[in-house]
């Protein structure tokens, strides 16, 4: 790794902030870190897939034998010929076929009826609630940001977290660390001037300009400096990973798939299994806010989602990382049971989550919400989303869920050991 030593020397102060102020992991991890820095790294990677806009869970995992389903979805009920039944109760939407494949292989957990008390129906508030893991709106850093704060990585990896996209998701928001967001690899590097015989001199000068700008009044100066430092070091690592990677599958053409391929490259960049520095990656697919003419839009989005996840999972497995990668989806809410007059659905409450990986005990979890016992026309939630987070934090990321989530939530048995 070029310049790795450099980076450690220059940014150790920034990276070690988690060590200096281990407020979140006051107990378990900080103590472990005292013994060995590597113990704090579980060797496992979590990939978070945001399905933004509010997924219509009812038309994704379809309770097709429930008479209430066809009564309330007169225009939008999925035809039985367009679904893939699991049993007498539910079927997958046919555009979710690749996820069904993973389910049939026993590697997909479907958690039904996920939500939280007193739902918020605003996209933005609801997304904040899921990403801050805080329905009361009392905190404003992300649950994964809090996880990263407690993560002690004394080797100074700049890419323990990565988001694919222009904007950092709120879940990665931290007051102590800056997690990189990458849109394309080509763009994710500091370009030199054409014909410049001494590009290193110009780059070093630029970084020095950021280093010496530390006025007491401007709140953004330190942020600018840290951001540039992290960006530069991350770009070196990422571009090296990309230049050597050979995917085992052809990824579909979608932004989500492109992002997942990038994460696969990064996971493999550590070399042998369990050595990737990446702890959490975040990818995004939007458009699930299907207020009007839902059918074609939802089908396309479900296909994009399931094909990208399937390709990624196949690829990382072929590279020997199948046991070290877990994929978890989330969406800020489900949709109203009754369709609206514009052949769409409005914002609802309970929504399913999907968890994929070799570490998963496949099957259905949580209590399926009733289609007749509704709350203002919405499916009532039966599982708090923080129970899913807590399970993943403790069983997968080896992190203390109570500290990250500011509370204790009953865990679900969808992960092995």
């Amino acid at each position: 790794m070029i310049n790795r030593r450099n980076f450690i020397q220059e940014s150790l102060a920034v990276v070690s902030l988690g060590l200096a102020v281990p407020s979140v992991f006051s107990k378990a991890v900080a103590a472990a870190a005292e013994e060995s820095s590597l113990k704090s790294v579980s060797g496992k990677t979590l990939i978070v897939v945001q399905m933004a806009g509010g997924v219509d869970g009812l038309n994704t995992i379809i309770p097709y034998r429930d008479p209430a389903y066809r009564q309330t979805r007169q225009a939008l009920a999925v035809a039985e010929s367009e679904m893939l039944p699991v049993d007498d109760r539910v079927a997958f939407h046919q555009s979710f076929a690749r996820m069904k494949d993973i389910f049939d292989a026993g590697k997909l957990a479907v958690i039904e009826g996920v939500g939280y008390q007193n739902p918020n129906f605003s996209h933005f508030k609801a997304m904040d609630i899921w990403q801050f893991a805080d329905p009361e709106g009392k905190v404003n850093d992300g649950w994964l940001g809090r996880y990263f704060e407690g993560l002690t990585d004394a080797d100074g990896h700049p890419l323990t977290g990565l988001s694919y996209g222009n904007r950092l998701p709120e879940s990665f928001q931290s007051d102590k660390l800056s997690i990189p967001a990458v849109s394309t690899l080509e763009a994710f590097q500091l370009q030199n001037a054409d014909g410049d015989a001494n590009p290193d001199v110009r780059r070093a000068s630029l970084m020095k300009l950021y280093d010496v700008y530390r006025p007491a009044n401007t709140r953004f100066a330190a942020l600018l400096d840290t951001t540039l430092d992290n960006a530069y070091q991350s770009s070196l690592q990422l571009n090296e990973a990309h230049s050597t990677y050979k995917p085992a599958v052809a990824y579909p053409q979608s932004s989500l798939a492109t992002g997942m391929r990038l994460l696969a490259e990064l996971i493999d960049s550590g070399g042998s299994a369990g050595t990737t520095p990446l702890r959490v990656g975040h990818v995004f697919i939007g458009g699930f806010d299907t207020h009007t003419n839902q059918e074609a839009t939802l089908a396309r989005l479900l296909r994009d989602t399931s094909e990208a996840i399937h390709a990624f999972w196949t690829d990382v497995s072929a590279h020997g990382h199948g046991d070290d990668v877990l994929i978890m989806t989330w969406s800020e809410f489900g949709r109203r049971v009754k369709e609206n007059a514009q052949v769409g659905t409005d914002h609802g409450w309970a929504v399913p989550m999907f968890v994929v990986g070799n570490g998963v005990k496949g099957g259905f979890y949580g209590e399926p919400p009733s289609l007749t016992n509704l709350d203002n026309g919405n499916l009532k939630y039966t599982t708090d989303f923080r129970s899913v987070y807590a399970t993943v934090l403790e069983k997968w990321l080896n992190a203390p869920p109570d500290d990250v989530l500011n509370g204790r939530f009953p865990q679900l048995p969808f992960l092995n050991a």
Partner: protein
Amino acid sequence: MTESQGSTSVLRKPATRRAVLGGSIAAASVAVAYAALGDKLNLFGGSGSSATRADTAAINSESVRISHLLRRAGFGVTREEHDHYQSIGLQATIDELVNYDAVDDSAADTLAAQIPTESLQGLAGWWAVRMANTKRPLQEKITFFWHGLLTSQISVVKSAELMKRQNDFFRANAMADFPNVLKGITMDPAMMLYLDTSGSQRRAPNENYARELMELFSLGIGHYTEQDIREAARAFTGWQVPRARTAPNEYVFEEPVFRPNLFDNGSKTFLGKTGNFRPDDIVDIIVEQPASARFIVGKLYSAFVYPGPDEQTLQRFVDVYLKSNKSIGATVEAMLRSDDMYSPRAYRAIVRGPVEYAIAAIKALGGQASIAQTLAQGRGQTVAAMGQTLFEPPNVAGWPGGETWLNSATMFSRLNYINQVTGGAPQPRNARDVRPQPAPGANLGTAAHALDYYLPLVLDDNVPDDARQLLVDYAGGPDAPLSPDQLRSLVYLILASPQFHLA
């Protein structure tokens, strides 16, 4: 002094992210505390090194105040504009910004009129040309403010024509009364398509617009109930933006029509008032809410002065707003003339968004229409990579702004954009051979000359001494002759400086 020294060490690298951020509620109070300590450091002369001294002293000079104002009430300046505003002074500059109807803007109109606006890219280029060339920067800046607040996405509206119409509405009503702006946007066809009032009918009122109108456009969460949303949604029923097909996959939209049989003609109870309300009534009830005045004045203050004003500060401008019959123009003018605007707390207190960042760079380099046009097109996707595409905000909340503009990826996009426009990388088509184009007769033969030319133009001539020295050293000394490539890279370093991200 121990307190001051304590704050000094806190603000030194490595500062925590939260400590240096504003924008979120918890952070805002921290920021207030730091701002106060920063002032204290200044008052007592400061015991820290140059690296931790506040850089706000500059705002006491009229020259810097003018440049600061033009970053907020405009998109930065060309050399020519810089010289013009500096020569007429601060008060005359404010007068000219505010009384923009009296300013001839035909040159910008002519430039913009040459650009076809049938596509998103054309439309974005058209607007960028306006931003870069207008002599009425405040009007354009408020237009941009409205676009970010009362926003629509072209990907949803699917009509460049309607998006342009919405944009023209914002420009024409830049300084209008807030109730009229809200009434206009409620019946704006692009908005009606975007938030689904078009086609909403009494049997199943679509709640989308009613919710966002209150949550994001006029009141903020906590000042209405879910029931208020349902009731307002009933008042917005009955309207449709008709669409006529002119060719396969080609449509023209017609004027919104009202279909009485689809309107919910019953009584509604909204925010404590009852009646058979129509859209204008809903707006009239909203703007009478005290929360509405605080909402819009707070948005304006955060955009033009500094983010997160305290209640007392806000109240002074809420008074102006209410006394002026809810005039946006009067409120903004009061802000631009206020001491707040030129207080240390306001200086470099806002992170420039991508479009502002790019336009300011272009203007400093000798602004050309073709550059502004192409920044929104083709390889000029760089502004999109910075996180902002005109007419395509991420969602109905607009761009969150502030620190969210800055992450690893957008930092590269910004710096690489500067590399491109200073001639360090190939330009987008139609914009070749762009290099720093100083005013005719300017002497840029040495580092000292180049710094004298560019530092006052783009950085208020206000950078740490070691930064200035670094630039001089990079060029090989103050008096060493600069080659064109050296000049190119020197200008890159100036525009790529950390201060240039801030307004």
